[in-house]
């Protein structure tokens, strides 16, 4: 199967087809709360993570709260 070429937090990566947003989050952090995800700058609500598959050339950003302000 052809891998899916996406950009995750600014880095290009090849993912298995049908990889979900939930799987991308798990690959980056053990944190389960305090996380938000955008795909192509649109926020993906947490409830939709496991039902949303990333597709070719998607820009996925996984964000969390850090020290600031």
């Amino acid at each position: 199967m052809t891998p899916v070429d996406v950009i995750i937090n600014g880095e290009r990566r090849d993912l298995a087809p049908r990889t979900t947003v939930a799987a991308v989050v798990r690959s980056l952090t053990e944190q389960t709360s305090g996380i938000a995800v955008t795909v192509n700058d649109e926020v993906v609500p947490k409830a939709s993570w496991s039902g949303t598959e990333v597709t070719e050339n998607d820009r996925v950003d996984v964000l969390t709260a850090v020290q600031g302000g």
Partner: protein
Amino acid sequence: MTTRISEAESGTAAAGARDPLVIAGREFGSRLIMGTGGAPSLQLLREALTASGTEMTTVAMRRVSTTTQGSVWDVLRDNGIRPLPNTAGCFTATDALRTARLAREALSTDWVKLEVVADERTLLPDPVELLDAAERLVDDGFTVLPYTNDDPVLARRLEQVGCAAVMPLGSPIGSGLGIRNPHNIELIVEQAGVPVILDAGIGTASEAALAMELGCDAVLLASAVTRAHDPALMAAAMRDAVTAGRRARIAGRIPVRRYAEASSPAPE
């Protein structure tokens, strides 16, 4: 200098009386809002937050890093401190909206410290983008606490579009220059119908006390504590300063005189 004390303020005059800070209907026992930026470690941050007595603390939203150990999110949760996400690093209203929505999703809060700055060198708020962002965020259901210039007119406009507080700067972020225009802060306080929170520029405890003496409802600071030699000790100092300044404000200072007025009776 004369200060006018509102009835609401003087009603809480008794020492030790309950005197909560109320923002958008939510009560806070502490009038010190902390930021978390600049702490050398999460452990020092934890100690400083505890010493400060703060009940609400700002955080920024950034990409997760696979190398960092522990998170500020855990520190706040463990300590029962309410997170106040900021939009630091945003230069346009559109950027700020995106960041606020991200934070709302991640942290399950519709409160936001709105920062829209004009340039990296001064980090001063861009008034045009700030007002635009504030209006759009209020429309989107956010409780908006804008970091603003010490400009009474802009503060009034921010209140008019529905902000839950106004947060004028004392001086630029992280500068420790204190309150450069106390007169403007007093003008903002006089006209405000929402809480006024002195945000940015505080360097040491006397400046936090001054903010409260000028009539601010609360103080927001980060660097003064997190970059101090002993963050927890400075946090405790800030806590005391904010309390002292608040009490002095409510108590009503004596008028300033040009010459002495004897405090002992004249000799007979």
